[in-house]
């Protein structure tokens, strides 16, 4: 295992490992701009339910969404460990994700990632691009673009 790892070091990707409820999720580090503590969120009326509102991030307005609500879990309880992960997929368009806890940065090489199987009955599965094995635990790797960008079709079906 170690050997394979070293030969494939170049292709391995770094993920930020976060906790939502009891599960661990991985967010591709290349999209992560910043991780900030929980702060006052200004509600935006009539927005999607999982968008908690907007925050002021050093003079920029950044919309913040709750992964819990997006995944149809229990609403967030803000604690000392709650963080907002600021992602930037495109220039001039940041977005924040609320997570329960940020654990660590992990290196995952492709051999430890299993492709996710799509399950139409599971709301969450459409946002997962794969499952990574790290030490003893499993990390669900988020498909960041799909999480953030609303698919109109999905809405209509629901």
């Amino acid at each position, binding site marked *: 295992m170690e050997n394979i790892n070293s030969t494939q070091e170049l292709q391995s990707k770094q993920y930020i490992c976060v906790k939502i409820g009891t599960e661990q999720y991985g967010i591709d580090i290349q999209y992560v701009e910043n991780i900030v503590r929980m702060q006052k969120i*200004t509600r935006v*009326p*009539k927005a999607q339910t999982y968008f908690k509102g*907007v925050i002021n991030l050093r003079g920029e*307005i950044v*919309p913040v969404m709750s992964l819990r609500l997006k995944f149809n879990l229990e609403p967030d309880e803000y604690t000392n460990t709650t963080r907002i992960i600021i992602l930037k997929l495109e220039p001039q*368009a940041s*977005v924040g994700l609320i997570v329960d806890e940020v654990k660590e940065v992990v290196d995952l090489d492709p051999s430890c990632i299993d492709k996710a199987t799509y399950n139409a009955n599971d709301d969450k599965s459409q946002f997962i691009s794969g499952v990574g094995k790290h030490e003893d635990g499993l990390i669900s790797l988020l498909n960041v673009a799909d999480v953030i960008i609303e698919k109109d079709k999905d809405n209509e079906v629901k």
Partner: protein
Amino acid sequence: MDVSQYLEIFIDETKEHLQTLSDQLLILEQEPENEDTINEIFRAAHSLKGMAGTMGYKRMQKLTHNMENVFSEIRNGKMKVQAELVDVLFRGLDALESYLNNILETADEGTEDNQDILNDLNSILAKGTGAEIPAEPAKETVKQEAVAPANDDNFMKFKEIAISEYEIGTLEKAKEAGQNLVGITVYIAENCILKAARAFLVFKALEDLGEVIKSEPSVQDIEDEKFDFDFSIILITKEDKEKIKSAILNVSEIKDVAIDDFSLQQEKEQAKEKEQEKAEEKKEEKPTQPAMVQAAAATQEAPKKAQPAQPAKKSGGKPVVNRSVRVDIEKLDVLMNLVSELIIAKNGLISIGSSENGAKDGTAFNEQVEYLERVTTNLHESVMKVRMMPIETVVNKFPRMIRDLTKKLGKKMELYMSGEETELDRTVIDEIGDPLQHLLRNAADHGLESNEERIALGKPEVGSIFLDAYQDGNNVVIEVRDNGKGIDTEKVKQKAIDKGTITPEQAETMTQKDIIDLLFRPSFSTAEKISDVSGRGVGLDVVKTNVEKLGGDIECKTVLGEGSTFIIRLPLTLAIIQALMVELGDEKYAIPLGSIETIEDVPLSDIKYVQTKEVINLRGTVIPLIRLDEVLDVEPREQEAESLTVVIVKKGEKLAGLIVDNLIGQLEIVIKSIGKYINNNKMISGAAILGDGEVALIIDANALV
């Protein structure tokens, strides 16, 4: 010489000159005799040519050169301005503009020669000046050359004489006066000792018969005996060739004389070729501009074919030139002054902060803050002024467009514009052109009736389109009005029912305004036939989206048979606004001052109900009330107060009262977008960051009314 550093200036000035040309041509079309206009055009064309030449854009130079020739003839009174000519000139302008666009994107003018325009210009020039159409004699020459053996060409050396532009002018005039142009090559016997004397005698003989325009080598060189045994002459004469020939042969020691009609066309081409060669040589000396050399090389290989591959290579990239604004130096000076004041204010604050007796300095501190406030307000105003541009820059291309439409649609119409000096933010200016153009096209194509219909209806034959711009408070209003047939709301209604947009029942209850609003829905066109000009059904909704993107709105008024008016309302600026901060529950919202009419305290008892909707009767006007807390899903207050604070907002002529919990005060806010991921429901136009770092959302009153 590396000219790339001048590219921006070149582009700016070219734009200006093109605009002048377009404006003046329009005037010229109306008043063909207006000398000022002609002079103005000539000057603009001339500078354009010069600039294009300096920058090494030879196609552009060639085209402007040909246009300038025409202007020059007009200026000299040799030609009359006709519609046909103006058409060609406009085509020339379009071509120049496309060159400019190419340059803007790739720093290269492209490879389109626009030969057809050049030909048209030349044939008009020829016709206009009364000379024979040069194309025909040119053909004859070609034939003659084809028949004659190759060495004949060598024999007639005068064909190789290079002629300057000025001389061509003289020759053309002579030709026009009915004189013959004759080319002569004189061969002196090789054993002749006094060549110069013989040549002198030849000149003397010729001067009796006509006028020597040019000789090769020059007269001076011939006198100094700086030639071999032949020299060539171009002569303007009324005599025939044989007589000239015999006159020359009368001079002793002349071996032979070659004489023929001199073809101008051929000479012109030669002259041009020479010019081009020179231009290319010049270019090759510039190692800093490989792109141009490449283009030149490409042209040599395929001079007349447009090469789509060539520009394709570069297109898609970023424009090579940054967009620039010309700013009045005075405005910059004001800015500089304000910045220095800002520094002074900062220093004042520092000194207060560092002084020991902190308790006493409350007033001094406040003074400094007030000073700072004054400075920032001024700074804001000045920066805004720098960003402002007169709307003229957009609308001045419209007269030309209407002119083209007049031709295309076969309808006579006039465009009347007012308020071109109204200033708008640069970003708005950049975006408003397309919507306006669309509305004008609509007015021209669908709005105005055909001339026959208009006469039948007893209207003036020529239709009028008005474009009025003016400032109205914090808004700029642009109206596009026509005196055409107006919008047939019944027809629109029927169409909407046919299309399934609305049900017949709905149609019954719709007001005139509701029906007109249907026009702004996507893919809704009432034009029966799709024309080149408009009517593809992707019209007004796009206009509306564009205008709304700029933070403005559009409405339409129409009277059947009398015309329609489209009113676009735009905010003066996009970035910084004055807003009223209000409180709803625990949340703070900003309402732009520009849309606020008044603020009223309304006792609960004054609320009336119309169709179960709350309204108030305010000084004779019935105003619908909107409970913002309900609309925005704010937690309602526990107990109803006895009176309500109502902010009356207006959109166009419509008013509405927004019920808020509390007023906080007026604040200058910087508008920020809330991002594209969050569902924007149009009620929120953005967010602002308050002094304490909190975020307040900005309510778009236009969306609520």
